């Protein structure tokens, strides 16, 4: 039966019998057929809408007249001009970057710490591991509401305890105050709170992947190092970290893309106010409050373009080289 296996890389010069060729064709056809439902769905619901959005970005369109206009109208660059020159564009892009980098870095850092702490067995570990994953699996609407109420200046537990035990002289509006003076330095309070939420909600994701990788590290490697008298920090630096490099790099890219396009979390927590207007919230604002489809599409495209540039730069210069295909 091994003789009929077709996936062995054959030398290109060797002539194959006709029967094997048709087999190959049949496999090709089956592959395409099996993938075609996927292809159709993604094409209809994702690819075509994206292409359409690109067309929309070059037309002056408002929500009221989109139903009557066709695909092609008067093409213009005015939307982009508008997007780039409208107030708040650059600050929103900057906010998005700070939010994305902060959310990605902290979620991975906390995920790493959690994975290292929960690595070895102890009674109740399964339960602890499951509860650590809760922020990630719980519905975003429910958890943002709890955060909102916990941090509320009027009846939130955070402010009540802060005033009672930490000596705050008045409540802090974590989600609606743009700047807060801490020891004479102004910090962007609402943005930091939103980043903290992001780290809280997504560190379980990083934790899950890092833990899976940690448990696959060969035991004898570590045992040998321990016998040689290596301290835990040395063990981590020289044995564990090199093994974790690839998974951390993958997580960074994944989390960066996801956070960069994130809408719900920020929208539900602050509505995009108090210096937290990330770019996707801005697209939503263009769309719903100004009913300006053209500008919303242009803003969205600029966002996607920035993301692509950042990814290309990363893959080109910083990504760890892998031989694996």
């Amino acid at each position, binding site marked *: *039966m*091994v003789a*009929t296996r077709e*996936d062995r890389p054959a030398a290109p010069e060797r002539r194959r019998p006709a029967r094997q060729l048709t087999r190959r064709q049949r496999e*090709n056809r*089956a*592959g395409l057929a*099996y*993938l075609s*439902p*996927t292809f159709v*769905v*993604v094409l209809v*619901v*994702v*690819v075509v*809408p*994206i292409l*359409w*959005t690109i067309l929309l970005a070059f037309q002056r369109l408002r929500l009221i007249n*989109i*139903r009557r206009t066709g695909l092609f109208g008067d093409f213009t660059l005015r939307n982009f001009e508008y997007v780039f020159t409208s107030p708040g564009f650059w600050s929103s892009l900057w906010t998005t970057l700070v939010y994305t980098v902060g959310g990605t870095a902290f979620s991975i850092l906390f995920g790493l710490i959690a994975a290292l*702490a*929960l690595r070895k067995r102890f009674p109740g570990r*399964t339960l*602890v*591991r*499951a*509860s650590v994953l*809760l922020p990630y699996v*719980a*519905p*975003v*609407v*429910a958890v943002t509401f*709890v955060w909102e*109420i*916990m941090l509320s200046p009027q*009846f939130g*537990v955070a402010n*009540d305890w802060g005033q009672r035990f930490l000596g705050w002289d008045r409540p802090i509006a974590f989600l609606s105050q743009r700047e807060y003076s801490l020891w004479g330095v102004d910090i962007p309070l609402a943005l930091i709170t939103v980043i903290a939420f992001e780290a*809280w909600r997504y560190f*379980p994701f990083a934790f899950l*992947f890092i833990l899976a*990788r940690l448990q*696959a590290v060969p035991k004898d490697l570590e045992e040998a190092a321990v016998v040689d*008298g*290596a301290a*835990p920090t040395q063990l981590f630096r020289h044995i564990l970290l090199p*093994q974790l490099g690839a*998974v951390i790099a993958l997580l960074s890219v994944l989390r960066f893309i996801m956070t960069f*396009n994130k*809408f*719900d979390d920020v929208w*539900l927590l602050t509505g995009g106010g108090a210096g937290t207007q990330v770019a*996707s919230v801005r*697209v939503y604002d263009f769309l719903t409050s100004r009913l300006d489809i053209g500008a919303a*599409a242009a803003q*969205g495209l600029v966002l*996607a373009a920035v993301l692509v540039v950042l990814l290309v730069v990363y893959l080109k210069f910083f990504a760890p080289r892998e031989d694996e295909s």
Partner: protein
Amino acid sequence: MDRATFETRLFGVLRWVVIAVLIVVTLFPFYYMVLLSIRPIEAVLQNPGGLWAGPAEWTVSTYREVLGSVDSGGQGFVRLILNTFLVAASATILTLLVSIPGSYAVSRLRFVGRRQVHFLFLAVYLFPAILLAIPLFTVFTRLGLRGSLAGLVVVYIAQTIPVSIYMLRNYLSTIPESLEEAAAVDGYTRLQTLRKVILPLAAPAVMANALYVFMIAWNEYLFALLFLVENRQNWTVSLGLAQLAGGIEVSKTVLMAGSVVLTLPIVIIFFATERLLTEGLTAGADKG
């Protein structure tokens, strides 16, 4: 004391500190959610920092308001729960029907464009979801799908297919190919092999996958907001809750009761299947 002994002791202690902090940080918001949902609003306003409420103080009036029918002055969340369940279950089944053959093709069959498939998937996540909304909104309006649950299901399928195929592919590639060859020798067609040999072996992965897709669909908010907001009959729980929060006259404790109603099914499913789910999600990740 040398460095290794010192550090071993230090981290031995730190480890427990970290575990304790982790438990508090992850569980406290959920505890607070449940606590507020059973406390009367007056008690919360009087003592917002209280972290304990005796049974004497408990109330179920918040749940009565959330779940009660609209006619009786409640918020009618029972209907929303059914809607959400219907959407999530259909999205799960349809996604699997599409992604099982898809992942089999990607992991086993060589076809033209196999290497380029990933770019197609990348497109799903590279563009902000809100960008897709504009054209979909228009098309759905024209087709009469806007405001219907079917339209929402279609969007959820497209949003979950890539991750579903990725997870399944990783699992399928661990099933030895010799099994398929044996089935072929026995005269099975490719489809029969997939159904009778591969699927039973991949059952845990398929199950984990189904749960994951179900969770994503159950929790989704943005597309529900965009497509369903005008049609109250079809609201999902997430949307209903967010709309409830916008109302002024609804007290925060009722909001928390709604959050519990929204979260509880997911938490139950999750704790019942935690091992299956985490292993399914990270299958292949341990290969580095």
